[in-house]
Protein backbone atom coordinates (compact mmCIF):
# COMPACT_ATOMS: atom_id res chain seq x y z
CA UNK A 1 0.00 0.00 0.00
CA UNK A 2 0.93 3.66 -0.11
CA UNK A 3 1.65 3.96 3.58
CA UNK A 4 1.81 2.03 6.83
CA UNK A 5 -1.68 0.95 7.78
CA UNK A 6 -2.75 0.10 11.33
CA UNK A 7 -5.95 -1.36 12.68
CA UNK A 8 -7.98 -0.84 14.68
CA UNK A 9 -7.44 2.90 14.90
CA UNK A 10 -9.25 3.02 18.25
CA UNK A 11 -9.77 0.27 20.78
CA UNK A 12 -11.38 0.36 24.19
CA UNK A 13 -10.63 -2.73 26.26
CA UNK A 14 -11.80 -3.76 29.69
CA UNK A 15 -9.01 -4.45 32.13
CA UNK A 16 -7.97 -8.07 31.82
CA UNK A 17 -9.04 -8.38 28.19
CA UNK A 18 -6.62 -9.47 25.47
CA UNK A 19 -6.11 -7.19 22.46
CA UNK A 20 -4.45 -7.62 19.07
CA UNK A 21 -3.19 -4.70 17.00
CA UNK A 22 -2.39 -5.16 13.33
CA UNK A 23 0.18 -3.45 11.15
CA UNK A 24 0.46 -3.55 7.37
CA UNK A 25 3.86 -2.10 6.43
CA UNK A 26 4.76 -0.44 3.17
CA UNK A 27 5.15 -3.10 0.51
CA UNK A 28 8.73 -4.33 0.21
CA UNK A 29 9.91 -2.89 3.52
CA UNK A 30 11.98 -5.47 5.35
CA UNK A 31 12.21 -3.63 8.68
CA UNK A 32 9.20 -3.23 10.94
CA UNK A 33 9.08 -1.49 14.30
CA UNK A 34 6.56 -1.13 17.12
CA UNK A 35 6.55 1.84 19.47
CA UNK A 36 4.39 2.85 22.42
CA UNK A 37 3.52 6.51 22.90
CA UNK A 38 1.88 7.52 26.16
CA UNK A 39 0.01 10.81 26.35
CA UNK A 40 2.43 13.73 26.28
CA UNK A 41 5.48 11.52 25.84
CA UNK A 42 7.80 10.55 23.02
CA UNK A 43 7.51 7.19 21.29
CA UNK A 44 9.19 4.38 23.23
CA UNK A 45 10.71 1.47 21.33
CA UNK A 46 9.05 -1.90 21.85
CA UNK A 47 10.36 -4.33 19.25
CA UNK A 48 11.91 -4.65 15.79
CA UNK A 49 11.69 -7.20 12.97
CA UNK A 50 13.80 -7.73 9.94
CA UNK A 51 11.65 -9.80 7.62
CA UNK A 52 10.15 -12.48 9.89
CA UNK A 53 12.98 -12.43 12.41
CA UNK A 54 12.43 -10.53 15.65
CA UNK A 55 15.87 -9.02 16.15
CA UNK A 56 15.20 -6.90 19.21
CA UNK A 57 12.42 -7.13 21.76
CA UNK A 58 14.19 -5.33 24.54
CA UNK A 59 11.49 -2.66 24.81
CA UNK A 60 8.56 -4.95 25.50
CA UNK A 61 7.48 -3.92 29.02
CA UNK A 62 6.40 -7.34 30.25
CA UNK A 63 5.69 -10.88 29.15
CA UNK A 64 2.09 -9.81 28.53
CA UNK A 65 3.32 -8.16 25.32
CA UNK A 66 4.01 -10.33 22.30
CA UNK A 67 4.69 -9.46 18.66
CA UNK A 68 4.92 -11.59 15.57
CA UNK A 69 5.51 -11.22 11.86
CA UNK A 70 5.25 -14.81 10.59
CA UNK A 71 5.55 -14.16 6.85
CA UNK A 72 7.74 -11.11 6.95
CA UNK A 73 4.98 -8.69 6.03
CA UNK A 74 1.97 -8.06 8.29
CA UNK A 75 2.72 -7.86 12.00
CA UNK A 76 0.52 -8.25 15.06
CA UNK A 77 1.17 -6.84 18.51
CA UNK A 78 -0.73 -8.74 21.16
CA UNK A 79 -1.29 -7.56 24.70
CA UNK A 80 -2.63 -10.10 27.16
CA UNK A 81 -4.58 -9.30 30.32
CA UNK A 82 -4.54 -5.56 29.60
CA UNK A 83 -3.99 -3.12 32.45
CA UNK A 84 -4.70 0.58 32.71
CA UNK A 85 -1.04 1.48 32.29
CA UNK A 86 -1.17 -0.11 28.83
CA UNK A 87 -3.35 2.78 27.63
CA UNK A 88 -1.34 4.52 24.91
CA UNK A 89 -0.98 4.94 21.19
CA UNK A 90 0.80 2.01 19.59
CA UNK A 91 2.75 3.06 16.54
CA UNK A 92 3.95 0.78 13.80
CA UNK A 93 6.67 1.83 11.38
CA UNK A 94 8.54 0.31 8.48
CA UNK A 95 11.59 0.97 6.38
CA UNK A 96 13.80 -0.56 3.76
CA UNK A 97 16.88 -2.32 5.08
CA UNK A 98 19.77 -0.17 6.29
CA UNK A 99 20.06 2.32 9.13
CA UNK A 100 20.13 5.33 6.84
CA UNK A 101 16.72 4.70 5.36
CA UNK A 102 13.73 6.71 6.49
CA UNK A 103 11.33 5.04 8.89
CA UNK A 104 7.70 5.67 7.95
CA UNK A 105 5.07 5.63 10.65
CA UNK A 106 1.44 4.65 10.63
CA UNK A 107 -1.16 6.79 12.35
CA UNK A 108 -1.28 4.50 15.33
CA UNK A 109 -3.75 2.40 17.26
CA UNK A 110 -5.17 4.27 20.25
CA UNK A 111 -5.74 1.82 23.10
CA UNK A 112 -7.74 2.81 26.16
CA UNK A 113 -8.04 0.29 28.99
CA UNK A 114 -10.95 0.90 31.34
Amino acid at each position, binding site marked *: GAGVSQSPRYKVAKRGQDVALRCDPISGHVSLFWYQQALGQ*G*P*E*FLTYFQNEAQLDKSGLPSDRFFAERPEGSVSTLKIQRTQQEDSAVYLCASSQGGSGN*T*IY*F*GEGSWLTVV
Partner: protein
Amino acid sequence: AQSVTQLDSQVPVFEEAPVELRCNYSSSVSVYLFWYVQYPNQGLQLLLKYLSGSTLVESINGFEAEFNKSQTSFHLRKPSVHISDTAEYFCAVRDDKIIFGKGTRLHILP
Protein backbone atom coordinates in the same frame (compact mmCIF):
# COMPACT_ATOMS: atom_id res chain seq x y z
CA ALA B 1 23.72 2.94 24.05
CA GLN B 2 22.06 5.67 22.09
CA SER B 3 20.02 8.41 23.71
CA VAL B 4 18.46 11.74 22.81
CA THR B 5 17.83 14.72 25.07
CA GLN B 6 15.43 17.48 24.22
CA LEU B 7 15.97 20.07 26.89
CA ASP B 8 12.76 22.04 26.37
CA SER B 9 9.39 20.37 26.79
CA GLN B 10 7.57 23.47 25.52
CA VAL B 11 8.68 26.49 23.53
CA PRO B 12 6.35 29.49 23.11
CA VAL B 13 7.24 31.88 20.32
CA PHE B 14 5.48 34.74 18.59
CA GLU B 15 4.37 34.31 15.00
CA GLU B 16 7.05 35.39 12.50
CA ALA B 17 9.76 35.21 15.17
CA PRO B 18 12.73 32.81 14.90
CA VAL B 19 12.82 29.59 16.90
CA GLU B 20 15.40 27.00 17.93
CA LEU B 21 14.49 23.60 19.33
CA ARG B 22 17.44 21.98 21.05
CA CYS B 23 18.55 18.38 20.73
CA ASN B 24 21.60 16.60 22.09
CA TYR B 25 22.41 12.97 21.43
CA SER B 26 24.77 10.27 22.52
CA SER B 27 25.80 7.39 20.32
CA SER B 28 28.73 5.04 20.21
CA VAL B 29 28.40 4.29 16.51
CA SER B 30 27.84 6.14 13.25
CA VAL B 31 25.16 8.72 13.73
CA TYR B 32 21.99 9.08 11.75
CA LEU B 33 19.87 11.92 13.09
CA PHE B 34 16.26 12.83 12.42
CA TRP B 35 13.62 15.36 13.31
CA TYR B 36 10.02 14.17 13.19
CA VAL B 37 6.93 16.37 13.55
CA GLN B 38 3.57 15.37 14.97
CA TYR B 39 0.70 17.75 14.23
CA PRO B 40 -2.34 17.62 16.53
CA ASN B 41 -4.19 14.30 16.17
CA GLN B 42 -1.90 13.12 13.39
CA GLY B 43 0.91 10.57 13.02
CA LEU B 44 4.63 11.16 13.00
CA GLN B 45 6.07 12.68 9.84
CA LEU B 46 9.73 12.98 8.90
CA LEU B 47 10.79 16.63 8.83
CA LEU B 48 14.47 16.24 7.94
CA LYS B 49 17.42 13.93 8.41
CA TYR B 50 21.20 13.90 8.58
CA LEU B 51 23.02 10.84 7.26
CA SER B 52 26.37 12.18 6.02
CA GLY B 53 27.88 14.99 4.00
CA SER B 54 26.83 18.59 4.61
CA THR B 55 26.18 19.21 8.26
CA LEU B 56 23.32 21.60 7.48
CA VAL B 57 20.11 19.93 6.34
CA GLU B 58 16.89 21.63 5.32
CA SER B 59 13.22 20.74 5.07
CA ILE B 60 10.79 21.89 2.41
CA ASN B 61 8.87 24.12 4.84
CA GLY B 62 11.74 26.32 6.00
CA PHE B 63 13.18 24.36 8.92
CA GLU B 64 16.87 23.52 9.07
CA ALA B 65 19.08 21.58 11.45
CA GLU B 66 22.83 21.50 11.88
CA PHE B 67 24.79 18.44 12.91
CA ASN B 68 27.53 19.46 15.34
CA LYS B 69 29.73 16.49 16.19
CA SER B 70 31.88 18.26 18.77
CA GLN B 71 28.84 19.39 20.72
CA THR B 72 26.82 16.24 19.94
CA SER B 73 23.91 18.43 18.95
CA PHE B 74 21.33 18.57 16.18
CA HIS B 75 19.31 21.70 16.91
CA LEU B 76 16.31 22.58 14.76
CA ARG B 77 15.80 26.16 13.63
CA LYS B 78 13.37 28.25 11.63
CA PRO B 79 13.91 31.97 10.95
CA SER B 80 10.20 32.84 10.94
CA VAL B 81 7.47 30.60 12.33
CA HIS B 82 3.83 30.41 11.25
CA ILE B 83 0.75 29.38 13.17
CA SER B 84 0.69 26.21 11.06
CA ASP B 85 3.98 25.14 12.67
CA THR B 86 2.15 24.40 15.93
CA ALA B 87 3.07 20.78 16.64
CA GLU B 88 5.21 18.45 18.72
CA TYR B 89 8.74 18.01 17.42
CA PHE B 90 10.79 14.90 18.14
CA CYS B 91 14.52 14.54 17.68
CA ALA B 92 15.73 10.99 17.04
CA VAL B 93 18.89 8.96 16.52
CA ARG B 94 19.12 5.69 14.68
CA ASP B 95 21.44 2.70 14.62
CA ASP B 96 19.27 -0.34 13.94
CA LYS B 97 16.23 1.03 15.73
CA ILE B 98 15.28 4.67 16.15
CA ILE B 99 15.36 6.26 19.58
CA PHE B 100 13.28 9.37 20.20
CA GLY B 101 13.60 12.27 22.58
CA LYS B 102 10.66 13.19 24.76
CA GLY B 103 9.55 15.91 22.36
CA THR B 104 9.22 19.70 22.34
CA ARG B 105 5.81 21.29 21.97
CA LEU B 106 5.99 24.42 19.84
CA HIS B 107 3.38 27.04 20.73
CA ILE B 108 2.92 29.84 18.25
CA LEU B 109 1.59 32.99 19.85
CA PRO B 110 -0.42 35.43 17.72
